[in-house]
């Protein structure tokens, strides 16, 4: 059945009934709604409704002094907090050509990779919860504690380390010698346990029978639906923004691309990416250049729209804004990876059992805290309004 997924919109598809889950449901670790259109147990079509956590972050950011923006962008999401904070400062840094000391770049990259590992381990936890394997989920959360500790040492908080600021990093996040040693030690210790953990998973026939050959997302589909990040790479689409980021130029690592296209590939993809992240962390700590960590000689002035792209844990993240003469933000735009993956998820779960479909959705690592968008299709003129436009036109209330 899973070998030949039926096309989602084909005429001959029989849909017997609809099953809907969420927004409060154990399979979804955050609010969104899945509607599965099933025939017996087989999913024929799927709709994911992500519009559950509208907070209006983009609007809130408008008119703020740019250095304050950071504090809100970081709270876009508690999994990717560092990514948002970093990318929002990258916009002005690249737009106004502010120099960032090399040491700061290293520490930013380090935090980024540390958080990538925590994020991927959440993924493992979530995926194995959905597979029903509580023990593996617990093991992965236990492994994750190592890196939560590192984040807390570096940034002062387990979830929101608030490391980057415009021109560098917050000085309290500077690495001391003791901290460097501690990180290296913990990374070594982690790697040992982690290898064991992954080997155990891959050798487990019960778990593997759930993962293999389910949730196929072909390369063509991945490209067609703009799957990004690990979801796309596990389908053989070799695309990683870290290649183009100048912050990553001085590191030596591999970009993992797998060709299997199924749930197993997406799990293994992330397992291998963690290993690469460990390499980067080691290099960042060992080769950390001396020097200042923040450049404060910048003045926020007029800036045209500038867009910064960053490879976050789930794919491409875009932040974009303009500044007026006083350095106040105009029209902030965030485009996060999960909405881009959403269509791919909807596609990938077609043709599988209901339980497998939920696993497939989980295996794309959905997390929608950041991605609620409001869109109104003005039927008269047949065009889609962005949320900024909607708010301008209709005000805050719906």
């Amino acid at each position, binding site marked *: 059945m899973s070998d030949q997924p039926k096309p989602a919109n084909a005429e001959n598809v029989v849909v017997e009934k609809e099953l809907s889950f969420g927004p409060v449901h154990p399979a979804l670790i955050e609010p969104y709604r899945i509607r599965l259109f099933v025939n017996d147990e087989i999913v024929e079509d799927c709709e994911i409704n992500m519009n559950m956590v509208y907070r209006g972050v983009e609007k809130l950011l408008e008119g703020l002094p740019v250095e304050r923006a950071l504090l809100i962008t970081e709270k876009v999401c508690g999994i990717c907090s560092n990514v948002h904070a970093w990318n929002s400062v990258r916009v002005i840094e690249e737009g106004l050509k502010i120099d960032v000391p090399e040491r700061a770049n290293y520490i930013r990259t380090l935090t980024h990779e540390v958080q990538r590992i925590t994020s991927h381990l959440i993924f493992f936890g979530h995926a194995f919860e959905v597979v*029903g394997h509580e*023990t593996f989920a617990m093991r992965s959360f236990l492994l994750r504690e190592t890196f939560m500790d590192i984040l807390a040492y570096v940034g002062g908080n387990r979830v929101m380390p608030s490391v980057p600021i415009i021109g560098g990093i917050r000085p309290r996040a500077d690495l001391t010698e003791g901290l460097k040693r501690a990180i290296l030690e913990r990374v070594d210790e982690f790697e040992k346990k982690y290898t064991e953990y992954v080997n155990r998973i891959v050798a487990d026939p019960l778990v593997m029978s759930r993962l293999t050959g389910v949730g196929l997302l072909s390369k063509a589909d991945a490209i067609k639906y703009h799957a990004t990040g690990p979801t796309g790479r596990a389908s053989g689409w070799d695309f990683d923004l870290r290649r183009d980021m100048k912050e990553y130029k001085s590191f030596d690592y591999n970009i993992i691309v797998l060709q299997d296209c199924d749930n197993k590939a997406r799990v293994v993809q992330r397992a291998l990416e963690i290993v690469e992240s460990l390499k980067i962390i080691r290099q960042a700590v060992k080769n950390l250049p001396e020097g200042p960590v923040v450049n404060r000689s910048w003045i926020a002035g007029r800036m045209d729209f500038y867009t910064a792209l960053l490879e976050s844990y789930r794919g491409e993240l875009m932040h974009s804004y303009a500044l007026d003469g006083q350095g106040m933000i105009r029209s902030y735009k965030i485009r996060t990876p999960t909405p881009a993956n959403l269509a791919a998820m909807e596609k990938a779960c077609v043709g599988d059992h209901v339980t497998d479909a939920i696993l497939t959705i989980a295996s794309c690592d959905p997390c929608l805290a950041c991605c609620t968008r409001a869109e109104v299709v003005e039927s008269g003129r047949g065009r889609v309004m962005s949320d900024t436009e909607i708010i301008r036109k209709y005000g805050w209330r719906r």
Partner: protein
Amino acid sequence: MGVLSFLAGIIASSVVASIIAVLYSLVLPGIERKVQARVQQRIGPPILTPGWWAVLKFRYKAKTEPIAQMPGFYKSIVYLGLGVVILLFLFSTPYWWAVLGWGSILGLAGLLKLEEVLYVLMGSQSQSILSTSMPVPDLAKGAKGEGIRREFVEQHSAERALKMMAIGSIPLYLALIVPFAAAKSGLLSSVVALQNPAYSAASWFSLPLPSSPILFTVPGLLAAVVYFVGYVMLLNEKPFSILKAKIDVIEGGVLEYAADLRAVYYIMRNLLLFTLSSIFVTLFLGIPFDPFMPLLFILNMLLSLIMPVALAIFVAFSPIFTFRQIYPATIGLSALGVLAMILAASI
């Protein structure tokens, strides 16, 4: 006189046996959880918490009306379920062996089947807030799937229960047949007599030990394995927990039971956990739960721990199977069961 004393005996034994069994069975989920917790490298709850205290606590919660198609019927199902499990348990105790021939494979199998049917009924009744009736605008303009029948997750779970009924319990029945086949009789009494000849003549304080347990023969061992997996299936535990999988249908039909109804459900489930392993000890080791032989029933209870503990370990290491895996697994197991049966018949 004979009838009267028999009646008095059966009533007394039933009361004593069910009370002991219920009290004891409520310790099992705690042990189960504790074992899992240890495997997962944590401390885990105190042993009495998930069973004993939870049930007591639910008794003290305010009664609420379940959201169901027919709330009255829905409520009565769980009591019915409890009744069925208690009967099942009593049928495996010696005093009932003689009553109407129910202490036989037919009685056991019939009640087990009834128990499974109840899950289907529960599922089709319950209509919790967790799925279709969640107050979110699903059918907004432009949404997919307009006009399609919208189903509650519990109803989906009922459909799954139906499928599990058809295939899932076959291994357990096959395994059940093995000891009867070995004894060449359909009655529990002869199965026990075959293994434990000392039992029928023993006095109340003695401990008649089985001389030739079926478990230690080749077909017995095979059947025990099959029985164990069937046990997991019948209890809807991982990996066969598809009809109450937390990840999609949450708890299936029992979702809406609250307060005292939930307490009854907990008792029912835990008693089933105990009953099935007690039956295993009776059938495969020849140690029945005789309420008037303290040493014997304590031994039975202790040996009955093996199954739940094995179950806990098994559950800790297995994912949930979908029907894609369940069908082949059941077919394989059934084959094993049939093999055991053939071997047993040829002993």
